[in-house]
């Protein structure tokens, strides 16, 4: 059997999307109070869910690659446009702090009855039109700036993938340690 399985039809989308949506909803990530609460440092659900998911998936991918089950170049790794990733992330972060959601969680939130999330979703589509309108002016700048050879953090630092995954575990543990200290001092 060859991996990835090339299972890319409608049923695959519905199944994996369905699991994604179920977990996000039950995890509380359709709740704009929680999502924006992360940006006020009042609720750490977003950080915990995202970081845990990244560590589990990255660790799993590393194991599959180390065992030779799935070649490293067989999965999609996004291109490194540093400036564009940073500025785009800034806009999406602003959008979540102000509007309550990000693109995926707005779908989850509306599916649980939150009408404000539908307005956010309309905003997403209109924001895409705005980008399309400005594209001719933005295009030269988007692909300019630093264009490094490496795609991944392990390539950039010349470290094995498992070291990077362990470093992420360290970051998550450090955040929990700081939070527990704050809790103790507040009590």
């Amino acid at each position, binding site marked *: 059997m060859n991996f990835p399985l090339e299972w890319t039809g409608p049923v695959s989308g519905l199944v994996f*999307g369905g699991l994604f949506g179920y977990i996000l909803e039950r995890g509380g990530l359709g709740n704009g109070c929680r999502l924006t609460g992360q940006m006020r440092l009042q609720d750490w659900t977003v950080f915990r869910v995202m970081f845990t998911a990244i560590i589990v998936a990255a660790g799993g991918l590393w194991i599959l690659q180390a065992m030779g089950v799935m070649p490293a170049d067989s999965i999609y790794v996004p291109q490194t446009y540093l400036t564009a990733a940073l500025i785009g*992330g800034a806009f999406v972060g602003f959008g979540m702090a102000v509007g309550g959601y990000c693109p995926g969680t707005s779908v989850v939130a509306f599916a649980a*009855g939150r009408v404000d999330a539908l307005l956010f979703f309309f905003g997403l589509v209109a924001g895409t039109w705005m980008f399309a309108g400005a594209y001719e002016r933005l295009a030269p700048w988007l692909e300019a700036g630093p264009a490094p050879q490496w795609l991944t953090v392990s390539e950039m630092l010349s470290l094995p993938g498992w070291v990077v995954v362990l470093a992420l575990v360290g970051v998550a543990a450090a955040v929990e340690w700081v939070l527990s200290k704050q809790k103790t001092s507040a009590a």
Partner: protein
Amino acid sequence: MNTYQTSTADRGRPDWNAYMAGGLLGLTLLATFVATGHGLGASGFTTALAAKSAVAVAPGAVAANEYLAPMVAEGANPLDSWITWQVLGVAIGALISATLNGRFHWRFEGPTRLTTGKRAAFAIVGGLAAGFGARISAGCTSGLGLSGAATLAVAGFVFLAGFFAVGLAAGFLTKRYWK
């Protein structure tokens, strides 16, 4: 630190523990990579929807637009793609969770100290910024922040740095609108 509660969060079965939700999400993401070779996303769908809806309203303007024109060239339907099924799946999965666990009810949320009209304005402005930004970075929190970082992509972590830096600044500036 999970002390921040809202009146609406009290209805229905409670949220899962964040580590459990994160672990299950990580396994789902891993399975998606194994099955398809790529991760999960969202803004690919809103982009396709923006292109398709723009063609319906203003086909001439779309044909002249460098960004949208290639998506609909020769009558192509940008919605005919895996990401459309995946986002439809997200909506169905979330609806199933909300319904089975007593968590579905119609409501209008947003900053708790603001009127509905102002909440609507915040939601639209936030959506505009997120839609615009996700096209600059060619990915959103799901596609670049989550799935990109899971491949250890530098772009994913740089996205997350910008996301949290400006998100935290905006979070503190808008803190007074929340109880």
